[in-house]
């Protein structure tokens, strides 16, 4: 009985990850995609525990899920930290305008 329930919980987790994937595919700004990656990361750790219970050897998978949560945290922090750095480095020249700026019509 619990084994069937575990499969149901795992399948429900996968189905509920679809909106996160949708947000990764469509998210207008790159930050929405980062949020979705963060959600998927934590959910993967939970899914590892689900797979562990399915396999019946949860004691092996628990350490693994813990390390996984750590890695996900490090990865999303590094990206968030790097995203910050692009704006703060002053030496990035603004991109050269390809089309020359139209002269504004002088107010008569």
């Amino acid at each position, binding site marked *: 009985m619990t084994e069937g329930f575990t499969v149901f919980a795992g399948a429900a987790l996968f189905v509920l990850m679809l909106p996160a994937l949708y947000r990764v595919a469509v998210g207008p700004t790159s930050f929405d995609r980062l949020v979705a990656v963060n959600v998927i990361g934590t959910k993967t750790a939970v899914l590892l525990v689900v*797979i562990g219970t399915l396999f019946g050897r949860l004691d092996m998978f628990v350490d693994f899920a813990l390390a996984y949560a750590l890695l996900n945290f490090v990865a999303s922090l590094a*990206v968030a930290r790097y995203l910050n750095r692009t704006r703060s480095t002053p030496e990035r020249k603004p991109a050269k305008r390809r089309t020359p700026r139209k002269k504004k019509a002088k107010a008569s």
Partner: protein
Amino acid sequence: MTGLALFNLFILVFMVVAAVISLRLKDLLTASVVFGIYSFLMCLLWAEMGAVDVAFTEAAVGAGVSAVFLVATVFNVKRKSSD
């Protein structure tokens, strides 16, 4: 269709979707972040097939190191992809 085969199907579908998204993205930084998802799911696939140590290495390399390296290189080259 045992439980694990169902998980297998889900993970493989998600991996294909993540790979396609990662290829189509214009902004290289988010492409490398979505690549992180791909290696997350790859590691989940290894774990689901029972090879735990391989999954562990993939997680450590994929999510931990290579995603961060990709992000670091994106900041030394132009961020918008030219194609």
